[in-house]
């Protein structure tokens, strides 16, 4: 047995010209989440409880693409998804198409713990959330000003963007795309948000 360990992520595909202050903001959030996880592990919380706890924190902060701060659909709404898996017995739970559940990861945990199923989506998942009494919020809660701007850019570029959370409008717009030769999926990297 090698002792506990923890890792967190806030998405991949970072804009190479991401401003330093945005990088530092992201590092602060990751450090805070690691600290929460470390404290929980030192308090002997189980691995499954710790991953839920840490992801809830990431969902609640608007910096990365999950929960509040989620990427927007073509209609300007938020549809979230999450999953959780417990290694020892390979138990798992997953949800998709959530529009009002404040912390999707906890609903995924409830699917794992409280249903005979592995995956609930859309209306059925929302109904299950209401029955379980989890915290619900209006869809507007998840929508940030930055993301509204990024959706506008995505529509102007007629492209689907990866979930770039951190870039400012000036770093992910068309001019930045022209300056940057790196490509992902055939599109300039600067058009993507780091997932």
């Amino acid at each position, binding site marked *: 047995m090698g002792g506990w360990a923890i890792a967190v992520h806030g998405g991949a595909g970072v804009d190479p010209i991401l401003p330093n202050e945005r990088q530092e903001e992201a590092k602060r959030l990751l450090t805070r989440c690691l600290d929460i996880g470390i404290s929980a592990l030192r308090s002997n919380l*189980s691995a499954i409880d710790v991953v839920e706890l840490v992801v809830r924190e990431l969902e609640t902060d608007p910096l990365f693409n999950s929960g509040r701060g989620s*990427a927007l659909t073509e209609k300007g709404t938020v549809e979230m998804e999450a999953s959780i898996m417990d290694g020892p017995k390979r138990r798992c739970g997953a949800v998709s198409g959530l529009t009002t559940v404040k912390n999707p990861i906890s609903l995924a945990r409830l699917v794992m713990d409280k249903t005979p199923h592995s995956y609930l989506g859309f209306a059925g998942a929302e109904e299950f959330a209401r029955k379980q009494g989890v915290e619900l919020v209006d869809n507007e809660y998840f929508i940030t000003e930055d*993301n509204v701007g990024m959706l506008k850019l995505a529509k102007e570029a007629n492209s689907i963007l990866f979930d770039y959370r951190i870039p400012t409008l000036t770093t992910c717009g068309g001019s930045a795309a022209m300056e940057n030769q790196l490509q992902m999926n055939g599109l300039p990297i600067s058009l993507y948000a780091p997932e």
Partner: protein
Amino acid sequence: TVGCVVVDKQGHCAAATSTGGLMNKMTGRIGDSPLIGSGTYACDLVAVSCTGEGEAIIRSTLAREVAAVMEYKGLNLHEAVDYVIKTRLDEGKAGLIAVSKNGEVACGFNTTGMFRGCATEDGFLEVGVWE
């Protein structure tokens, strides 16, 4: 996308992943994050959470692949992560974090960077964005 993987003092592994998906995605689109074996996987050996180009991660069943090469090829955690990032993504761009039941931690990505952090019981702690 955000994710967390943990191995506790008992050697039990767990993984969690949550996302809003892609900006300007079609309504009804499902990515890799909720798909067990693609964006998220945990077993008695390892826990994995992925992020990146969801459709590529789905095609490669990326998270399960890490566990599979550990089980069937006998690779250690770091070798397994390197192997799947280099050989299983085809043209896709993605990253992942992983822990093993032995308390090892690893991350890998073929994108320009990945927002990530990790810590172990022996005092190691690292937070990074780039390679």
